C-alpha cells in the first residue's frame, strides 16, 4: 500500500512537472513566503511557528491553453499542529486519485497545492487538474462551499484558500448567448477533510462533532470505510444575471467530507465493546444563491438542502447516527456606505427536518457573524475585526487582525484569535487554543 501511495505521489510530481515542461512558452513564476507565529496565553507557549513557501508557475501554451502549477512547502517549528502519524484515511490510496502530501515529516510538509490546465474557447472553458472550486456566497460559513474538502488541523483559522484541500477534477463551463453559464464538475478524487489528531490543540471534542466514549466501555476502532474505486462526484451549477441579481442553482452528488462515526454495541464478548466504524457517506445537495447591490448595501443569500445528513445521537440507536435531510441557509448583508469601510453581517440557520430528541445537535442551529474592516493610508493599512456567535451553545470566536503593507513585496500583520463560551460547543471547545499571532509575507 505504501508503494502504491508513493506511486501516486510520483504521479502528482510528474503532472506538476510535465505541465510546465510540456508548455515551456510564456511561463511566469513567482514565489511567496508566509510566516506566522502564535502565542497561546492559556498554554503559555508558542503554538505555531510556521513558514509556508509557495511557488506559482503560470504559463501559456497558446491563445486557448494555460496552465498553473503551485507546489507548497509548509514548515512548523512549534510542531504542535499535527501528530507524527497523520491520518491517512482522508486521502485516497488507489489509482491516480492520489492527493496527499508529496513528502512530510513532523515539521515539514511538501505538497502540490494546485496543478491544472485551462482550455478556453469562445463559449466555454475546461479547467482540468488539481484545483479549488468555491460555491456559495457566504464568508466562513459553509452551506454550498463543499466541493473541496478542508484542512481542519487549525480549525477555521487559516485563510480558506490555504486550508481548502484542492482535488483532482474536471471543471467545465459553458457560456450561453444570454450570458448564463453552466458549470459541470466531475470529481474522481475522493479526498476528504483532514482533521486535527486527538490531543492536538484543534482536535474535535465537542459532542456534536465527535461521539464521546463512555467510561469503562472499550471501543474497537475499525478502518475508515472509503468509497469504492471508480466512484465519482458530480456537480452542476447554473449561473445567471437577471434584473441586477446574481443567481445560481446548484446540484452536487457527493460524499460528505467528514466520516460518519457509526457505533454499535458488541455484547458477544465478556466485556461490552463499542464497535466504531467511520464511513464516508453519500449525499445530494440542492442549492440556490442570490446576491444584489442596493445603493450602499449588498445582500447575499445562500440556501442548500442536503438529502442526507448524519447527526450524532446520544445513544446507540441506529448505530448512534440520525440520518435526516438538512436545510441550511445564510443571509448576508454588507454595508459599504462608509469610506474605505465594509461592515458585513451574516445569519446562518440550519434545520434538521427529521429531528429526533436523541440527536446531540439542536434541531435548529443558528449562528451570527459580524465583520468590520477598514483601510487606511491608501490601502496600506487594513484593520479587521470578526466576531461569531453560535446561539446553540452561546459560544463563538472573535478575531482581529491589523495588516500593514510595507511595500509591494512585504507585509506584516498582528492579531488575536479568541474562542469563548461553553466548552461543549464547537467553538468553545477551543477556548484553550486562543492565541495572539504575528506574521509577515513576502513575494518575489
Amino acid at each position: 500500500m505504501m508503494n502504491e501511495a508513493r506511486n501516486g505521489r510520483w504521479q502528482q510530481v510528474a503532472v506538476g512537472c510535465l505541465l510546465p515542461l510540456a508548455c515551456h512558452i510564456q511561463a511566469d513564476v513567482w514565489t511567496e513566503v508566509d510566516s506566522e507565529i502564535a502565542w497561546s496565553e492559556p498554554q503559555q507557549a508558542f503554538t505555531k511557528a510556521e513558514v509556508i513557501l509557495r511557488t506559482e508557475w503560470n504559463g501559456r501554451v497558446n491563445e486557448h491553453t494555460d496552465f498553473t502549477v503551485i507546489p507548497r512547502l509548509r514548515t512548523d517549528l512549534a510542531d504542535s499542529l499535527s501528530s507524527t502519524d497523520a491520518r491517512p484515511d482522508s486521502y485516497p490510496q488507489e489509482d491516480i486519485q492520489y492527493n496527499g502530501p508529496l513528502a512530510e515529516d513532523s515539521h515539514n510538509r511538501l505538497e502540490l497545492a494546485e496543478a491544472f490546465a485551462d482550455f478556453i474557447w469562445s463559449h466555454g472553458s475546461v479547467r482540468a487538474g488539481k484545483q479549488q472550486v468555491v460555491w456559495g456566497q457566504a464568508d466562513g460559513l459553509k452551506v454550498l462551499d463543499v466541493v473541496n474538502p478542508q484542512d481542519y488541523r487549525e480549525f477555521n483559522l487559516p485563510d480558506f484558500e490555504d486550508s481548502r484541500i484542492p482535488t483532482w477534477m474536471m471543471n467545465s463551463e459553458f457560456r450561453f448567448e444570454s450570458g448564463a453559464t453552466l458549470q459541470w464538475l466531475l470529481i474522481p478524487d475522493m479526498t476528504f477533510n483532514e482533521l486535527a489528531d486527538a490531543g492536538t490543540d484543534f482536535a474535535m471534542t465537542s459532542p456534536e462533532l465527535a461521539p464521546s466514549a463512555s467510561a469503562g466501555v472499550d471501543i474497537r476502532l475499525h478502518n475508515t470505510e472509503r468509497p469504492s474505486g471508480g466512484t465519482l462526484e458530480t456537480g452542476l451549477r447554473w449561473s445567471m444575471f437577471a434584473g441586477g441579481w446574481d443567481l445560481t442553482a446548484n446540484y452536487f452528488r457527493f460524499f460528505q467530507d467528514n466520516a460518519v462515526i457509526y457505533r454499535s454495541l458488541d455484547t458477544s464478548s465478556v466485556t461490552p465493546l463499542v464497535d466504531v466504524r467511520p464511513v464516508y457517506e453519500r449525499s445530494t445537495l440542492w442549492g440556490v444563491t442570490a446576491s444584489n447591490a442596493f445603493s450602499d448595501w449588498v445582500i447575499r443569500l445562500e440556501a442548500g438542502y442536503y438529502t442526507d445528513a448524519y447527526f450524532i445521537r446520544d445513544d446507540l440507536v441506529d448505530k448512534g447516527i440520525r440520518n435526516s435531510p438538512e436545510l441550511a441557509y445564510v443571509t448576508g448583508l454588507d454595508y459599504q456606505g462608509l469610506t474605505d469601510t465594509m461592515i458585513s453581517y451574516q445569519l446562518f440557520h440550519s434545520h434538521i427536518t427529521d429531528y429526533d430528541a436523541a440527536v446531540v445537535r439542536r434541531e435548529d442551529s443558528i449562528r451570527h457573524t459580524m465583520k468590520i474592516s477598514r483601510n487606511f493610508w491608501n490601502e496600506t493599512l487594513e484593520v479587521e475585526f470578526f466576531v461569531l456567535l453560535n446561539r446553540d451553545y452561546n459560544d463563538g470566536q472573535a478575531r482581529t487582525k491589523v495588516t500593514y503593507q510595507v511595500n509591494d513585496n512585504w507585509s506584516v500583520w498582528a492579531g488575536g484569535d479568541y474562542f469563548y463560551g461553553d466548552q461543549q460547543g464547537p467553538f468553545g471547545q477551543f477556548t484553550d487554543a486562543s492565541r495572539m499571532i504575528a506574521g509577515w509575507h513576502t513575494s518575489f
Partner: protein
Amino acid sequence: MNQMTENRERSQTDAWYLFGIRHPWLILVTGIVLMAALAAGMKHIYKDTRADAFLEADNPALMYKNKVREIFGLSDPLVIAVSDSSKQGIYRPQTLDLIGRLTDQVNQLEWVNASRTISLPDENNIIGSEYGLDVSPFYDLLKSGNGEDIRKAISDFPLYDGMLVSSDGAMSVIVLELYDDAMAEQAYNAVMDITAALDKPDGVNIYVAGEGAVLGFLGHYIDQDASRLNPLAGLIITIMLVVAFRRFLPALLGNMVIAASVLMTVGFMAWCGVPFYVITNAMPVILIGMAVADTIHILSHYYESQARHPQWSLKECLEEALLVMFRPVTLTSLTTIAGFIGLYASAYMPPFEYFGLFTAFGVAIAWLYSVFFLPAMICLLKPKVSKRWIRLEQESRSDAFSSMIAAAGHLSTRNPAVTLAVFLSLAVAGVYMASQLRVNENRINTFHKDEPIYQADKAINAHLEGTNTIDIVIETPENEGVFEPEVLKKMEALQAYAESLPHVNGSVSVVDYLKQMNKSLNEGNPEYYRLPDDKNLVAQYFLLYSASGDPTDFEEEIDYDYRLANIRLNLDTAEFIATRPVIESLQTYIDRNFNSEQAKATLSGRVNVNYHWIKDIGVSHFTGVTISLIFVCIVSALLFRSVIAGLMATAPVVCSILMVYSAMSLLHIDLGIGTSMFASVAIGLGIDFAIHTLDRIKALVDEGYDDMKALLDELYRSTGRALLFNFLALGFGFGVLITSRVVPLTHFGTIVVLSVTMSFVAALTLLPAMVLVFRPGFIFRHASVQPQIQVPVTSAGSTAAILLVPAILTALVAGALLFSGHAHASGNASLNGRDIAERINAVDDGQYVSSDMQMILTDKNNKERKREVISYRKYFGDEKKTVIFYKTPNNLKGTGFLTFDYPSADIDDDQWLYLPAMRKVRRISASDRGDYFMGTDLTYEDIKQNGRLDLNDYNFTALEQEMIDVDGSMVNAQVVEATPRTDEIAEELGYGRLKFWVNPDNWIIVKTEYWDPKGKPLKTYLVSDIRMVDGVWTRHKFEVDNHLTGHRSLFLFSNVDYRSPVPDRLFTKSSLVRGL
C-alpha cells in the same frame, strides 16, 4: 359728452378717409378689380420646400455643396430600408429577392440616377484571385450560399457592414440619388407606390426616409395641412363674427376683407416671383387674424352708434364709426407693419425676409380694405344692429362679454401699483428664462411622430449608420494627387477622427476601397486591411479593379483625374444641437491638419449646409425682436406724439414676448424655424390691443370723462368688448394652428396664442394701471378737466413708475443681448460650461479597447508601490462593461474587477471583485462613488467616468480661456468650474468644487483642480502624452497629487489597442475567476 362727439363729427365730415362712404360704387369696383388683378397671380405661385432655400443662392456653403454635387454627383439621397425581423434577417432568400426586385423597380424610375444607386444587388464584392482582383456583385453569391455567403461577404467588407446592411443583419438600405431635387415629390410618390405594391414576406417592413424623401414629401404634407387649416381658421373667424354681432352679414363682410388681404398678398408674391416657402404657410393664418381685427373694430363701433343714436341714419352711424376708429385702426396697422418690416430688416434668410415683407403688405391691404372697401360695402348693404344690442345700450347695460372684461379690468386697476409689480416680476422672470432657450432644428421633426416618414427615419437611424450626410472634399494640386500615400493617410486619419465624433457612425471614401483591395490581394488577411504604402501600388489597384469591375464605381468617391476625393460621413441624426459640435470639431481638425499645399479639405453636404443656416437663428431672432420693438415703439411715439406713449404701447407686447420665452423654456420648445417667427407676429398683433386701449382712453379723456372710474367703465364696456372679440378671433384663428400636423406650426400656434392672450390681458390691465400711476401727459394734456384720480402714489413710486417701461424694455434688450451672446458663443469657440462638458463626454472612446496600465503610488515619504493591470472595455449597446485584471504586485496578482455601467443615471452600476485569496467573485456596492480606487488617488467615480463628467452631478460655469502647457506646446484651454448640484452629491463624490482645463483641439481634460466639500484644495490631476491611437484621442499618462495626504498616483498606459476585437467572454464573472 355726446354733444362734444357731435361737434367733432361735424368738424370732420369732410375727412378724406370718408371717401369710401361718399363713393361706394367706385370703391367697390376698384377694390374688386384690384383684388382680381393681384389674386390672379396665385396660379403662378410655386413651392420651394428645400432646406437650401433658407440660404442665399450665393452663400459659400451652398455653392460648394452644389459644386460637390457636380463633381461627385452626390445629392441628398432618398433612402429605402428593408427590415426583416426573422432570424436570418435580410439574408433570408425571399427578402434578398424582394430587395433585388425593389432595386430594379426604383432604378427604372425616370427621376432616379440608377448608376449611382447604392444597394445590396448593385454593389460589388472585392476579393483577391489568381488574376488580381475579382470584383463581382454580392448577389452572385446568392446562388450558392442561400444568403449566408452574402452575410459572410458583407461581414468581411468593413465598409458595407453597418452602412449597407446593419451589423445585426436586420436591415438593408437602398440609397437613391435623384437627377433633380425639384422632382423629389414625384420620385417620392413613385417610390411609395412601388413599395406599397410589393408583396412582402412575413416580418418584412419597408421604410422610406432621407433628406430626398423629406424634400419629396414635405411639399405635399404642407399643402395637405394648409388645405385643412385655412378653411378651418376662416370658419372659426366667421363663427366669431356671427356671435359678436348676432348677424351673418358682418361675417360675410369680414371674410371679404380677409379674402382681399390673403389672396392679394399671395398673388402679389407670385407676381414678384417669390416662392411659397415652408414658413409661408403661416402667413395666411396670420393675415386672417390681422384683417378680422380691423373689421371687428369698425363694425363694432358702427353697431354701437346705431344702438346709441337710433335717430341717426345708418350713414351717419357709419361716418361716426369711421371718424372714431380710423385713427386707431390706422395706428395699429402702421405699428403692425412696422413690426413685420422689422423682421424683414433683420432677417438674413430669404424665407424670413419675404415673410416679413409680404405680411406687412398683407396688413396694409387689410387696412386699405377695412377703411375704404368695408365702409363702401356697409354703405351699400346697410346692415342693422340687433335688437338686443339696442336694448342693452338703451338700458345702459353691458352684455355678459362687457361685464366680464370690466370685472377683470377693475380688479387690476383697484391697486395699480400691485399690477405693475406683478408684470415687472413676470418680465424679470421672462428675461432669465429667455437666456435658457435653446436653438435647435431638425427637418424630420416637421412631421408628426406617427407619420411613416418620421418612423422610417427613426428606424433606419437606429439600425444603420444614418441617413444624414456630411461630405468632406479633399483637393490636391495636381492630377493623381490623391494617390499620394501621405494624402491617403491624412484622409484615413480624418475618417478615423470623424468616426470618433458622436453620431458619426460611418464614413466612405476611396480609402476604404483601397484597404479592401489590399486585403483581398493578400488572401483576405485582416491584417492587410490597411492602405498600400506606395503611390504606384495605389494606381495599380485601380487598374486591377477596372480589369474586373466597373471603373465608374468610384465616381462618388474620387474624380476622373484623381485630383479630388470625397469622404462621406453618415450621421444618425440631423438635430442641430447634435450636429453642431460635429461640424465645428471637423472644421477645427481640418484647419489644423489640412492647411498644406499637398491637400486641402472643405466641408460640405446636407448637415453642413443646414448648420450654416441654423446656427444664426438665435441671433437673428433676437435682433429681429429688438428691431421690431424699436420700430413699433418709434411709430407709436410718433402717432401719439409722445415718447412715453411709445414706451407704454410697447410694454404689453414686451410682457407677452417674455412670457412666451418662459413658456418655451418650461415646455422645452426649441427656438427653431417655426418658433423663431412668433415674436414678430406677437408684436404685430399685440401692439393693436395696446394702441386701441391707449387711444380710447385718450379719446375718453378728451371727451371730458373726469371720473376715472366712469372712464374705465366706458373703456371696458366698449373697446374692451371689441378687443375681447378681436382677441378671441385671433386666439381661435391661431389656435387652429395647434391642430396642425406640421409640428413647427403646432408650436408656432401654441406660442402665438399665448402671446396674444398675454398682450390682450396686459393691454386691459397693465396699461390702465400705468395710466393711473403715471398720469402720462400725452393723455391728459388736452383734457379740459383734470381727472379725479385717487391713487396712492408716492413721489418715489411715481419716479419708479416713470422708469418702469424703459426698465422692461432695457431688460428685454439685455435678455436679447444675453441670448445673442450665448447663441453667438455657441456658434463659435467660446462655449458655456455645460456645452464644454457635453463635448468632453462626446469624445469617442472606441467601441472596445484593451490597454496595459501601470500605477505608481507614492506616499508623502516617497515610498513607492507599483501596480500593473490589464484592462478591457467594451460597449454593448449603451451599456459599458469594463474588466481589470491585476498582474502585479504578487499580493494583488489575479485580482479582478468587473463593472457594468448602465446609461441611465437612475440605475446603479453593477460591480464584482474577485480576490484570489477568497477564490470567489464577490458582489460589491457601486454606490461608494467617492471611495478611492484600490489605493490610488482616483475615486471609483473618477475611474468609471474615465476623463468624462456626469452632467447630472454638476453645474458648470465657463471661465476665461487660459494658455496651458500640454505636452510641451501651449494650448488655449477652455476653463470650466464645476460645482456639485447639491450638498449630498458633494459629500457622495467627496468634491466641493472642480476646475478643469480642456484642450479644445480634442476635448480632453488636461488638468483638474479638486476641492473637498469643505473648500480645501484636495488634489490636482494632470494629463500628458495625449496621442491619437486608431483614430481615438488617448491619454497615455496622468498624475494625481493629493494635497491633503501628500500621496501621489501616476498612471501610465501602454499597448492601447482599439482595433483588436475584445471577446465578450472577458466580461463575465467566470473570466474573473479564471483570469486572463
